[in-house]
């Protein structure tokens, strides 16, 4: 044990043994740190989470593509061109690297037709392979520069065109916009209904709460796909009815969340304290309870967005998407899927878009959740 023995008393000058604060009143010192508000604190945490910062920028880029992307090239989303159907992607610059250079593979061509300069103009054939004889006819697969083949050397379809010759870049940007609008509007509506409903149920509690929650339970017992499909069957397709279909059942998780938050906070001592001071119900809801639930609400909204995007694409796949010619990511994906084996690029671009979008929203939502998590706050 390292304890000093009695004969080991340190030698210290006498003047050090003066009382130094005998006459001072010892008070609580002011803090030296800057005051940090709730949102600032959350923002600091969020910034530390690199994945969600990246996700945030991805969302920004995609959103600006959705808004401005279709103005980058001369085509419109509904302009059809029978001469330019199913063009493979071709991007200036990138084409020199050998990707997205407008080449494609045509399978099962007669060898003689490939050699015919009327059908395959000079320089359009890049490589002939897989030569075989089928029922006495020489057949080959051929890699061609499709743009030369159809005489469109000067044109660039960044993501190619579809079966009607519509530019897919423009359609993808437009489709992303449509999907995002559907997602945002339905989520905002869901959150709004959820807050009002949940707040009433949670704040007043008792019988009101019981009946309101019973209603939720009943609605919630319908599977989402069933509700959405029936709704659209009945009201027809269209942006509004898709949004409505997503709202019908979509507000319930938010309502439950808000109710739980209200039940949790309404008996907190600070709420009781406000009541003993005579603060009214509305002020308690808006000043004391909602601000404390804002973190979970924002996180909830962020998590719901990818869900809505998913539901919209799902509907498109089932055949209940928007009416032509309006594209959405889901419609593009579903159309691309039909020609996957012949023109895979038509499915890849929307696949990539929806995946990146969903991952970005989920990552960002995760970051927000961690940033707002009250258990991390004020404990360190």
């Amino acid at each position: 044990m390292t304890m000093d023995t009695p004969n080991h008393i340190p030698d210290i000058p006498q003047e050090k043994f003066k009382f130094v604060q005998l006459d001072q009143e010892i008070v609580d010192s002011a803090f030296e740190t800057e005051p940090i508000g709730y949102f600032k604190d959350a923002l600091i945490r969020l910034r530390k989470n690199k994945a969600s910062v990246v996700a945030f920028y991805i969302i920004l880029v995609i959103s600006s593509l959705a808004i401005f992307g279709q103005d980058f090239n001369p085509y419109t989303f509904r302009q059809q061109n029978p001469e330019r159907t199913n063009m493979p992607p071709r991007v200036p610059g990138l084409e020199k690297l050998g990707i997205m250079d407008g080449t494609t593979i045509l399978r099962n061509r007669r060898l003689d037709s490939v050699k015919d300069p009327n059908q395959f103009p000079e320089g359009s054939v890049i490589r002939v392979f897989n030569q075989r004889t089928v029922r006495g006819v020489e057949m080959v697969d051929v890699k061609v520069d499709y743009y030369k083949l159809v005489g469109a050397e000067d044109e660039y379809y960044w993501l190619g065109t579809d079966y009607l010759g519509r530019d897919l870049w423009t359609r993808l940007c437009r489709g992303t916009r449509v999907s995002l609008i559907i997602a945002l509007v339905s989520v905002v509506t869901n959150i709004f209904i959820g807050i009002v409903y949940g707040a009433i149920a949670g704040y007043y509690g008792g019988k009101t709460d019981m009946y309101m929650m019973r209603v939720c339970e009943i609605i919630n017992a319908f599977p989402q796909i069933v509700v959405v499909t029936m709704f659209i069957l009945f009201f027809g397709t269209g942006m509004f009815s898709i949004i409505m279909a997503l709202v019908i059942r979509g507000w319930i998780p938010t309502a439950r969340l808000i109710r739980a938050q209200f039940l949790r906070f309404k008996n907190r001592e600070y709420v009781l304290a406000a009541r003993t001071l005579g603060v009214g119900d509305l002020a308690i809801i808006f000043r004391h309870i909602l601000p404390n639930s804002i973190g979970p609400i924002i996180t909830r909204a962020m998590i719901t967005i990818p869900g809505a995007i998913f539901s919209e694409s799902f509907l498109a796949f089932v055949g209940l998407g928007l009416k032509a010619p309006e594209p959405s990511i889901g419609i593009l994906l579903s159309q691309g899927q039909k020609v996957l084996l012949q023109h895979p690029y038509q499915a890849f671009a929307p696949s990539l878009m929806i995946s990146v979008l969903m991952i970005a929203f989920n990552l960002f939502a995760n970051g927000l959740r961690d940033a707002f998590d009250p258990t991390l706050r004020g404990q360190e």
Partner: protein
Amino acid sequence: MCITLFIILTIAFMVVRLMPGSVYDNPEYSIEIIQALEAKAQLDKPWIIQYFHFLKGALRGDWGVSVKIAPCVPVFDVIKQRIPITILLNIISLVISLPIGILAGTVAAMNRSRMPDHIISFLVVNFISVPSFVFATLMQYFLAFKAGWFPIVYSATAAGTAKYRSMMLPMLALSFGPIATVTRYLRGELIENLSSEYMLLARTKGLTKYQAAFRHAFRNSCVPLANIIIPMFTGILGGSLVVERIFAIPGVGGLMVESVSTSDHFLTVAVLLFYSVISLFTILLVDISYGIIDPRIRLGGNE
């Protein structure tokens, strides 16, 4: 439960009967046939009578006949032959997702904030985000078409292993999401339970870290898993609608897509009812199992 089913039936009735145009609208039918069919289904009567007629039929299992996909065949029979493959597909997906998810979740939680956790968490975000039909599309192109490892579409006629090989991709596509869901949920639960006081007590008894983790935290974390199995199962079902179509699997999901696109409303509604019943059934099952697993609910504790 019953109320829900009743409401679903009512909505189904409204969807079919109150929609503009005749449900029997088929260019191959003459007007007489359509009228005869309508009369048989009492569609010429006031809607309230139609409604009771419909309810009566529904309770007896008579949900009408298919109009376009399999003309004049009762929809019940159409669905019946499609059910096994769908259920098989969904159950298998669930069965493979649970252990993989549990394993991955456990590995992530036990190695919290270390490399395995980071890798698993990264995969989880991707698997949860990317829709099953995107996975299906990509796998179909790369693994089946390009690499040729699997058949491109499902082959019902193939025997033995070839059949199951053709089911591999759809099953995989359907499993990614649930695996990720289970992983994420279990990881969260485990981390919470691992840091609980009773884990400390278990360790102070003399159990090693792993014994304590397995006997206490792991067991307790698996209990609330029942909670996420309902939405997961219905989620897989939803995903299977599209995945079945992509892989041309003759299941209920594909049937619904077809019936929607051909406006075969009786069939659509019947398929939807099928989904509702399954989902209600899972809810019931989970409610019951919950009571069995958790002693606090079983014995009626008030804490």
